[in-house]
């Protein structure tokens, strides 16, 4: 498997197909032209005077080229690149396989890039074929149909682009003739066309057809693989296979290790660490490259003297614009940092004090969210059996009071032990009580072991903070 299989969206599947084609682009192109070669040779021999018919005949023969592309592409996906001999062996089969269906009945089918995979790779015919196609298209065929529209549009578009790329390189006299005949062009004026223009147009069309068909065959194959990944779980199957191989492998490896445990390892003695290091360092990644850049000196400007007046006006304009921008910037800065001028929050030393946090460890510690008498309320909750709530009220009440009146700076992101450390450092008198409370809280919150009634009563009785939150 030489591509990553995973369930993709439809457009990503198309992209995967394009990437597959890009990898072997020249080989696939050669295969396509090989498939088309009989018709190209025939039509260039017999239909040289009628370029439209020539292009149509080649267009009709196109599925043979697509088949060879698909043949190489599908085998390449599974890791074996077919050699030219097998491509040549496939070639006559590609010309005749289901000729009536593919080349006549379903020649206009927009689903061709997808359905061709079913008939070529799965070798299904008749009822089995149509059932399989229906199943594959159950995931939706909007991308396939859009791809068909792209194919038609891009063929014309690229042919035009190729003609005009050629026109860019024309000598002047010939270009004149081309533009005159293009101006007077109508459907019945093929005979009056300059032969070089007719030939260029034909070749451009064939080139555009080959590019579009090679890439869109790849895109259709990408969609086919993706649909099968979705409805059959190819990627999971492969992963399970690898898993199975690994498990079988480890079972075998353990056995061989036991058998060979006495045998001395001769292989290791041959390569010394020095050799390995030298080998690694010889890698091109380790060579030091130096690049020198020279910055050209900017020479003093001159040659503007003629438009001095214009320059002066421009300079004035720029000057006023700069002043306006500066004023706008200052106003914006004032607006942005307006809280610095408010005065209310500014600390006594003029230092900016961050606003006290409202939430610590996911608990609401805003003073207005707490009852006035925290320990009484907690005791009440404990009495009716809502122990978790009681403890959490006690704990977050303590933190809130510490922030409010104890002057401890607790950040939103602090953990329990952070809080404990901060309290020990900044509010010594509360530290003993707070550490006992923290321990009880952590036991309940993380260890699910509730403290005894006695302990709670102690904690509530020993509440060291003022009952009502002090004013800021």
């Amino acid at each position, binding site marked *: *498997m*030489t*591509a*990553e299989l995973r*369930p*993709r*969206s439809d*457009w*990503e599947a*198309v*992209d*995967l197909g*394009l*990437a*597959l084609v*890009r*990898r072997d682009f020249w080989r696939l192109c050669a295969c396509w032209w090989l498939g088309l070669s009989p018709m190209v040779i025939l039509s260039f021999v017999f239909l040289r005077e009628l370029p439209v018919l020539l292009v149509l005949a080649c267009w009709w023969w196109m599925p043979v080229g697509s088949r060879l592309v698909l043949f190489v592409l599908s085998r390449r996906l599974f*890791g074996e690149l077919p050699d030219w001999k097998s491509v040549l062996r496939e070639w006559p089969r590609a010309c005749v396989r289901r000729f009536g269906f593919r080349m006549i009945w379903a020649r206009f089918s927009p689903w061709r890039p997808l359905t061709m995979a079913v008939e070529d790779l799965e070798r299904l015919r008749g009822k089995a074929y149509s059932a399989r196609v229906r199943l594959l298209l159950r995931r939706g065929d909007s991308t396939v149909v*859009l*791809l068909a529209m*792209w194919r038609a549009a891009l063929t014309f*578009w*690229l042919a*035009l*682009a*190729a003609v*005009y*790329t050629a*026109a*860019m390189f024309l000598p002047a006299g010939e270009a004149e003739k081309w533009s005159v005949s293009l101006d007077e062009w109508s459907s019945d004026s093929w005979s009056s066309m300059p032969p070089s223009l007719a030939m260029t147009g034909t070749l451009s069309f064939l080139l555009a057809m080959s590019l579009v068909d090679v*890439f869109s065959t790849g*895109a259709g194959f990408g969609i086919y693989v993706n649909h099968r990944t*979705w*409805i*059959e*779980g190819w*990627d*999971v*199957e492969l*992963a*399970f*296979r*690898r*898993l*199975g191989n*690994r*498990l*079988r492998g480890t*079972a075998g490896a353990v056995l061989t290790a036991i058998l060979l445990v006495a045998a001395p390892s001769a292989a290791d003695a041959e390569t010394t660490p020095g050799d390995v290091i030298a080998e690694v360092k010889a890698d091109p990644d380790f060579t030091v490259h130096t690049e020198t850049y020279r910055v050209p000196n900017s020479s003093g400007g001159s040659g503007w003297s003629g438009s001095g007046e214009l320059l002066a006006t421009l300079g004035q304009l720029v000057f006023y614009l700069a002043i306006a921008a500066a004023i706008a910037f200052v106003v914006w800065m004032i607006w942005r940092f307006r809280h610095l001028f408010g005065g209310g929050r500014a600390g006594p030393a003029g230092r900016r004090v961050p606003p006290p946090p409202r939430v610590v460890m996911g608990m609401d510690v805003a003073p207005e969210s707490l009852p006035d008498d925290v320990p009484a309320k907690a005791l009440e909750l404990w009495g009716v059996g809502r122990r978790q709530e009681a403890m959490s009220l006690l704990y977050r009440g303590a933190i809130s009071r510490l922030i409010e009146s104890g002057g401890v700076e607790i950040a939103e992101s602090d953990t329990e032990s952070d809080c404990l450390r901060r309290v020990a450092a900044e509010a010594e008198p509360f530290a003993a009580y707070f550490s006992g409370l923290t321990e009880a809280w952590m036991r309940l919150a993380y260890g699910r072991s509730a403290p005894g009634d006695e302990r709670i009563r102690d904690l509530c009785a020993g509440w060291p903070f003022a009952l009502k939150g002090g004013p800021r």
Partner: protein
Amino acid sequence: MEDTVSRIDTLQAIELAEGVEVRLRIAGPLPRGMALGIDMLIQGVILVVVTIVLAISGIGLGWNVASGLIMLAWFFMSWWFPVFFEAGKRGATPGKRSMGLRVVQTSGAPITFGQAVVRNFLRVVDGMPMIPWLPIPTMGFGLAACLATKRFQRLGDLAAGTVVIYDKVAAEPAVPAPPPMDAARPLVVLRPEEVQAVVAFRERAGLWSEGRRAEIADHARELTGDHGAAGVSRIMAMAHWLQEKR
């Protein structure tokens, strides 16, 4: 054996600091072409409306002023319209947004203003060859560059160091997996990709037939130690354990 071959993928892995890996879902030329078409339609409609309005107001403004303004509008529409949108917060023109695409740096970071300017001013180069009697770029060069580069970059993308990625992908229709009957711990230690496969089996099993499920599960016989339907339910139980109980 298989791992030594470099595999083709449409995702592009980028390693960030500390070994974190993000994957960009690079978008190919076809959805981008459709986005371009939508953008050109929007630009055309706006320009036609602006031209008509300015031409009418030219009666009052004077013809020279009006034609000057029209030319300015053309200039800004054709050169600055995509720059303006791509340098913005969403990193996508209206057309790209409607196709679920977005422009980012090759490192996955949002693009800068300078990059937006470079990649959109080079649109002229990508648009070559022009059709003389229609002011329409054929985008032939851009398409060729797109198909020839590994990350589907056109010339402007290569110069600016940007890629176009799928920003959001429509959710796939999922068939709910059968509810797990019990959870079982895998008997061997699984590698991350194997855990992924086991979980994917459970999540996508609803899309497969019963026979197919058993067929896939049989490949992991070493893991389940069972055949057929019993193996399937063993894997389901393991997936349940891996997802919920671990």
